[in-house]
């Protein structure tokens, strides 16, 4: 029913990028995600909030099939990006992940140079023919991730030598470099200090111009600051999904209200 309301409001303004229908996720016998339906719009920041273990990260990882790497994990239902079912047998998860970039909770740059970190994706996907092309992509990506000015003089330095916030922005640059259409962020600021968090949040807002961004966060303030849409997960259910402002000021479901007022969680 939530879906209907959103469709009414936004269908002409913004296209739906990702559409999930009746998604179920099982870890062995554990039913982790129960019947989730959600439509994520293009050029929008969508925040997933909810208490720990509610399945928001699991659902996020379904969107680029990172759950495939977990043996016991089973996904049912339909998830489509631009109308194409990503769990179709013909879909190569490798291609999908180039299209749906991901930024992880802990900054995890490769133990290589900054340049190699960013250029790795384009290189394996053959996005650059020449070294000059690659240089352009690296610079663009680092600029998009708002870290170019800080690292332009030391592209050969190890990525792991940067500060936590810089590392996370480097990871964002790395994700952006493969020219994805969707960016998934799994609690990207949980390992960062407030200043680095502010930088990354600002960056997320800028990234909205080009990508559909889905961010999982524990911080409701962060969700309120960066997102246009918010989805509240509880015990594997998608409880409520709607405009961020509505969710935070006038939630429909009593559980959502309890969570944002701090009574559960």
């Amino acid at each position: 029913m939530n879906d209907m309301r959103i469709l009414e409001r936004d269908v002409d303004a913004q296209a739906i990028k990702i559409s999930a229908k009746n998604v179920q996720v099982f870890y062995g016998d554990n039913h982790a995600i129960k019947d989730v339906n959600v439509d994520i719009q293009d050029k929008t920041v969508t925040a997933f909030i909810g208490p720990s273990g509610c399945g928001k990260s699991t659902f996020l990882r379904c969107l680029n099939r990172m759950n495939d790497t977990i043996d016991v994990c089973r996904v049912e239902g339909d998830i489509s990006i631009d109308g194409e079912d990503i769990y179709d047998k013909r879909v190569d998860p490798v291609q999908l992940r180039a299209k749906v970039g991901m930024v992880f909770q802990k900054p995890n740059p490769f133990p290589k140079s900054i340049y190699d970190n960013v250029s790795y994706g384009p290189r394996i996907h053959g996005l650059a023919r020449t070294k000059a092309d690659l240089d352009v992509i690296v610079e663009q990506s680092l600029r998009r991730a708002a870290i170019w000015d800080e690292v332009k003089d030391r592209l050969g330095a190890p990525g792991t030598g940067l500060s936590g916030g810089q590392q996370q922005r480097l990871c964002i640059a790395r994700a952006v470099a493969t020219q994805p259409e969707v960016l998934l962020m799994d609690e990207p600021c949980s390992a960062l200090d407030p200043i680095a968090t502010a930088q990354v949040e600002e960056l997320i807002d800028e990234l909205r111009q080009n990508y559909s961004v889905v961010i999982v966060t524990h911080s409701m303030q962060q969700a309120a600051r960066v997102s246009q849409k918010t989805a509240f997960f509880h015990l594997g259910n998608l409880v409520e999904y709607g405009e961020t402002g509505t969710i935070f000021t006038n939630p429909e479901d009593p559980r959502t209200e309890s969570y944002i007022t701090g009574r559960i969680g």
Partner: protein
Amino acid sequence: MTDVSISTTPSAPDRAKRVSLISSDARTEKRKSAERRFRMYGIAGIATGIFFLIVLLVSIVSSGTGAFQQTFINASVYLDPSKLDKNGNRAIEDLRKVSTFGYTPLIQQAVFDKLEQNGIETPLQKRGDMKALISASAAAQVRDVVLANPDLIGETVDFRILASSRVDGYLKGRVQREDVARDKNIDAEHLDLVDALVPLGIIEKTFNIDFITGADASESRAEAAGIGVAMIGSFFMMLVVLVLSLPIGVAASIYLEEFAPKNRWTDLIEVNIANLAAVPSIVFGILGLAVFIQFMHLPQSAPLVGGLVLTLMTLPTIIISTRASLKAVPPSIRDAALGVGASKMQSVFHHVLPLAAPGILTGTIIGLAQALGETAPLLLIGMVGFIASNAPDGIASGLLDPNSAMPAQIYEWAKRADPAFYERAWGGIIILLGFLISMNTLAVILRRRFERRW
């Protein structure tokens, strides 16, 4: 909640019982002495270990250094044409017909002449009495030179002839005068002679390069035996082990660690690999005998077969250490690679493997060092070939030619009767330990050098 409130507000009688921080109470004393005792046990354990290590090293060095020195007799041998080349045409076929028996009298004569020239008085008045001083290998030594250069016949040539093992032992303190009475090989008069010849420089003890480069020698000529050929055998085996076990081991570990599904079969394989690492090496020896020699009919005593058997033995070690170092690579690196759209294989070969490389390298070198010192399986496949020809022969066809290996050679020497061989066994141990120490050092250096560069 309630517990906390009680402990934070102690009642009045508790406060009265407070103890001084400066003088420790009985409980603290007890704890302290327990800790002291534990430290003592630890120190005692380490001290015992170090003590035995020192005893071992001292005994090895003191017993083995002798093998690196050898006694020689400097003599000028007249290469008599009437004995060595009866036809007088220096044809190599004719020269080959003269065996070492033709040379022995000439050498004995040469040593005998030295006595006369230097006016040494001795009751030994026959040329043949010199036999006890001279190594049985001396004739072959001279013959080889003559065959290589027939023009020398008819001239008097200076040679550094190997002294017999008894003379050698006498100079090294291994043979005492008291022992000689029961020894048929040498008499006290010979020892007097040696005492007289040493100051003249005719008999001298020098560094023995032939021990390191030379071949084994028969029971009666310990003085000519060297470990060089066995070293080559070991080298070829290590080559086979490295070429086979590194790629197979690394490939198997990568598959098991990164690709294989975790199910009952892979669990079974895992347990079996761990068990294989603990199988006694002689079992691998008999497996090699059955499979490689009796079934596949590969040549006996060949370094190829030895290498194959040692490969079987080394594989579990390499697989276990490789898997451990693959496991040590943080999963976030794999996620990162998969996240930018790398395939499983790309993530392994571009990111995981380079990070695991130092560990894999160390494991491989340790495995090789283990294989280098392994003796038991070699005995079963006959890698104790008696190779008396010197190094250059048989190197080219090395992998299939019969050969020995260093530990097997040491075992052979230790078995033999002549104490001179016993000395060589210790010398061989020194060389083997030298190799093992340098391999382990290399492993440590590589690990330090490449581990987590940033």
